[in-house]
């Protein structure tokens, strides 16, 4: 008789571990700790960490009455796509990730998606803004941020409101992201009645934009849209200023969102930039913190103001959490259904995913705000100037000629 009890006890002990470690959710992702995309990617990862720490401090995510803590596993993808498939396969098979965040760029998201779709795992994409991955028939890929095709729509609208007959030069870096943004912006500008007097792309490794700026001057343009990433966007801004191109309006991608853009001094004044989010944005959230609350808590922990990369990382976590709570389950299909049904406003903006097969997972509701560098008490600060409903200051137009 004793033996049976012993066996039963042993069996119970063997079965027990399966329950004991069961109250964590593992989320896997790669980030670019080295390589070109290091800065932006790190910002985003910090957003993830901040969300995780906040949720775990409250006990975890509520899944149908039971609380689950969040655990991350992440690897460095070095800013190139070559290893991404290996790393995501490892995250899913070896580290048993139940949900995934995408790598920082579209070029890396595409190969990763082949893996995540194969294993039917949900992946939230907040780094790659291109639309192509969503047209490949994927079912579990979701994008929280505004897609590349709408990056400059706000800038076009803002410019049109100030000067419907502006002469626009659209000059952009020849990389997948910038090209996607520009090729969408050009017809948008034309449709808005603006006069597109110059369209050109440049090699991403261009160092001297002098000749390009001269070409812009020759074209007679008084408004500029374009850029690419940090170094080139900053150099363009600086040289447009130094060579007195006298732009009345400038919208540059990515570079001006970096706080170090202020190092350009007078060259930064008046430059606008599309942004997924800025700390001054004042949407009223249906759940989660408001922008002001998010900024305050983030600053308290990291001693710096969060940028839109951190905000989008945090937003990813928030949306996933909401979907899991709504689904009351960790099952992929149930959570996917909850994501499909999401139609809510958070600090980051209005979030709703496209559910038709042709665009499944693409962000359908969120839109970019336009930030601008302005002077306040002699110091350069960022303000939100468009759309007017979310603005924290009036747009400076035209950019003062004496400064330009």
């Amino acid at each position: 008789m004793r033996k049976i009890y012993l066996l039963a006890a042993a069996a119970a002990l063997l079965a027990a571990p399966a329950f004991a470690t069961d109250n964590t959710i593992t989320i896997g992702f790669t980030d670019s700790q080295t390589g070109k995309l290091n800065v932006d990617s790190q910002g985003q990862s910090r957003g993830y960490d901040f969300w995780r720490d906040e949720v775990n401090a409250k006990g975890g995510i509520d899944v149908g009455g039971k609380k689950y803590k969040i655990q991350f596993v992440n690897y460095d993808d070095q800013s190139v796509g070559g290893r991404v498939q290996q790393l995501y396969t490892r995250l899913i098979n070896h580290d048993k990730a139940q949900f995934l965040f995408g790598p920082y760029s579209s070029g890396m998201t595409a190969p990763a998606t082949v893996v995540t779709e194969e294993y039917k795992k949900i992946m939230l994409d907040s780094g790659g803004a291109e639309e192509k991955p969503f047209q490949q028939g994927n079912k579990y890929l979701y994008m929280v941020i505004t897609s590349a095709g709408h990056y400059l729509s706000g800038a076009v609208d803002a410019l049109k409101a100030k000067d419907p007959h502006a002469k626009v030069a659209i000059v952009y870096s020849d990389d997948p992201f910038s090209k996607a943004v520009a090729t969408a912006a050009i017809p948008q500008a034309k449709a808005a009645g603006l006069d597109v007097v110059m369209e050109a792309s440049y090699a991403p490794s261009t160092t001297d934009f002098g000749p390009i700026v001269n070409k812009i001057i020759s074209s007679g343009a008084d408004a500029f849209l374009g850029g690419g990433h940090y170094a080139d966007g900053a150099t363009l801004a600086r040289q447009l200023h130094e060579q007195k191109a006298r732009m009345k309006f400038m919208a540059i991608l990515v570079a001006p969102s970096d706080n170090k853009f202020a190092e350009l001094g007078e060259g930064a004044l008046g430059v606008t930039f599309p942004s997924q989010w800025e700390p001054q944005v004042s949407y009223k959230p249906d759940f989660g913190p408001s922008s002001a609350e998010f900024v305050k808590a983030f600053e308290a922990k990291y001693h710096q103001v969060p940028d839109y990369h951190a905000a989008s990382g945090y937003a990813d976590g928030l949306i996933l959490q909401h979907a899991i709570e709504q689904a009351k389950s960790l099952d992929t299909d149930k959570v996917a259904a909850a994501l499909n049904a999401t139609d809510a406003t958070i600090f980051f903006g209005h979030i709703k995913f496209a559910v038709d097969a042709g665009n499944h997972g693409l962000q359908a509701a969120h839109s970019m705000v336009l930030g601008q560098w302005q002077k306040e008490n002699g110091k350069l600060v960022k303000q939100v100037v468009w759309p007017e409903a979310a603005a924290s200051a009036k747009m400076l137009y035209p950019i003062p000629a004496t400064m330009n």
Partner: protein
Amino acid sequence: MLGFLASVIDGVLVGFVYGLAAMGLTLIWGVMDVVNLTHGVMIVCGMFALYALINTLGIPPYVALLPVLVGGFIVGAGLYWLAIHRVVGRPALMSLLSTFSVNLVLVGLGTAVLGTGLFNVDVSIPGFSLGRYTFPGAHIVAAIMAALIAYALYLFLGHTKIGKAVRAVANNREAAELVGVPTTRVLAFTVGTGVAIAAVAGMLIATLFPFTVLSGDDYTLKSFVVTVLGGFGNPLGALFAGVALGVLEGAITPFVPVSWTLVIEFALFVVVLIAFPGGLFAPRRGAL
């Protein structure tokens, strides 16, 4: 028409700096047949040195020339003893790999410590205008300084005792050793000088454009193109070739969709290599 002329002038100005940037590479290559693959990261070191000196000591930009030159020289000499000394004279691949590995280490450390974000040094000097086109003062100053430094190097190699020793070693190391030239020290000196010039070029570039830890790569490629065009071991040749490259970039832009500029540069590079293996302005190799 005026726009074209403006772009060409801009190209000339920037070209002087490209030429200076390549000079360190061509000097080391010409003297000891070593391709210094740390060249790009040394340029970046010069950029950051300027940034650090301005932001911590508040000195005006061009005054940093001397400390950067001296610092670069010390680093270069160190590079020689660390990575080059043992591989001089061995097959080309060895020096390529040893300098490449140092480059990996330095870029890795730079990225880990500084990240890949943007840095900018604000230098605004009034320049002059031609109609609607402006030439920023900083570009003019950088071009003049690059030309002066190149000329100084040329005079140094041609008219000083050490310069003579360098040329002797470049010509025939064994013979130089036989007549009593301390060749090893000359080689270390050469690498020191080459790196110092690269760092100074970086300093000048930093006065013109914003930069990141990874900016070195773009200038390395341009330096290779300039070195090939200008002839190995020929500093003035490098200067002229740099200007030629700058003019090419400036002249093409108004006419060709800008994105083809790089293709044309590289096609030209390969064509010149094939047709003029010693470079466009080449003296015979070793005769500096």
